[in-house]
């Protein structure tokens, strides 16, 4: 058994290595000058949210760039609601006309242009074209909806299995049940307390599995980067912020504005610091998740990009092994970040509902 695993592992490493060897042929030599900027563009493109779901692209013999994937709907608010398929924009190569207005995709953003699709710049190389409010179903939105549906399906079936199966989890629920119990017994109860933890359990479970699933999906070859998007983590942290402050009791607010048990001068000094802390706590949540996932993706993409820069068997196999090792670490980080987000949210909820019998 052990031997078999070893052989298959070696096979996988070698097949990856040979696949790379075929990729980086001598025909790449002529464009080494812009290879680095091409790799940079690929990494940047991967980190961005896009208007279509493509897992790759290739250039045909006629020099046409083909994308493997499908288009997603574009929804714009530009005085009126405008919607069309992102296939009409042809990855920025053509201008789409709606009524009397023209739209063009430029570096991942949709701008209103004239019929030729002219993009104008100001002195700082910033685009001066009008930008309609973009409410599109982008790749991130679709992935989040998919994750939400997946979680609904998985956890409904877990809940139903308790009813039908005599309080014993069935199927995939057997995998998730210990994790749910762990979040209850080791995250919620120690941090929030036995009296109040039930109110927060649904949120903590949702946030843990949502972040975990999205992190894992980000590591899949689909090339999605949802939790590495600062707007998404901002939304998640905003929820924690709102729940903390809207469910807080009077002790929480007393500790912010009029810290009990310290001299009056100290109370005045502490109030603005504590007030700032209310915002900084969820802010650190949002930066931590965003930065960890973003940094992981950048490191992984750079290591894969190194294969094309080295362009020989030694460098390529070295960066393949490194990329493989980093991928495994990233699987751990995906779980760890979900855990820390949940853990710190529970800690903040704990502060909000803490009850002080004795003065201190």
């Amino acid at each position, binding site marked *: 058994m052990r031997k078999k695993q070893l052989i298959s592992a070696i096979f996988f490493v070698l097949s990856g290595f040979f696949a790379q060897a075929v990729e980086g042929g001598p025909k790449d030599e002529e464009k080494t000058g812009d290879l680095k900027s091409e790799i940079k563009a690929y990494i940047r493109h991967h980190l961005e949210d896009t208007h279509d779901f493509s897992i790759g692209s290739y250039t045909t013999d006629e020099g046409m760039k083909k994308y493997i994937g499908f288009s997603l709907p574009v929804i714009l608010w530009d005085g009126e609601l405008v919607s069309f398929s992102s296939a009409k924009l042809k990855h920025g190569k053509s201008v789409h006309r709606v009524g009397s207005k023209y739209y063009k995709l430029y570096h991942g953003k949709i701008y209103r242009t004239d019929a030729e699709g002219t993009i104008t710049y100001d002195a700082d190389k910033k685009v001066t074209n009008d930008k309609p409010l973009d409410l599109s179903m982008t790749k991130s939105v679709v992935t989040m909806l998919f994750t939400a549906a997946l979680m609904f399906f998985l956890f409904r079936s877990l809940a139903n299995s308790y009813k039908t199966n005599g309080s014993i989890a069935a199927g995939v629920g057997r995998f998730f049940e210990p994790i749910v119990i762990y979040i209850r017994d*080791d995250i919620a109860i120690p941090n929030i307390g036995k009296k109040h933890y039930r109110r927060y359990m649904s949120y903590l479970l949702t946030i843990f599995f949502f972040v975990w699933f999205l992190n894992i999906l980000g590591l899949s070859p689909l090339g999605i980067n949802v939790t590495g998007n600062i707007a998404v983590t901002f939304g998640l942290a905003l929820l924690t912020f709102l729940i903390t402050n809207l469910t807080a009791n009077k002790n929480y607010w007393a500790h912010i504005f009029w810290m009990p048990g310290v001299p009056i001068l100290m109370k005045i000094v502490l109030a603005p610091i504590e007030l700032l802390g209310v915002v900084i706590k969820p802010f*650190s949540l949002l*930066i*931590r998740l965003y*930065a*960890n996932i973003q*940094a992981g993706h950048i490191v992984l993409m750079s290591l894969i990009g190194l294969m094309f820069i080295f362009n020989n068997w030694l460098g390529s196999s070295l960066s393949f092994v490194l990329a493989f090792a980093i991928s495994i670490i990233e699987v751990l980080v995906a779980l*760890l970040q979900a*855990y*820390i987000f949940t*853990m*710190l949210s529970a*800690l903040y909820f704990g502060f909000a509902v803490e009850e002080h019998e004795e003065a201190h």
Partner: protein
Amino acid sequence: MEIPAIVGAGLVVIGVGMGIGRIGGSAMEAIARQPEAYGKIQTAMLIAAALIEGIGFAALFAV
């Protein structure tokens, strides 16, 4: 003479590395002393490490 921002970021990363290293080392010592408190020590270690790590990322993104 102006010091480039990347030098500052490097210094921050050295500091963060030392900090997380100390946390990990101390946690291991604590676990060796009291193996029964393994779970609690690990949780506290992860939280402290995560808080320091945030500073490191802030420095890297500031460059």
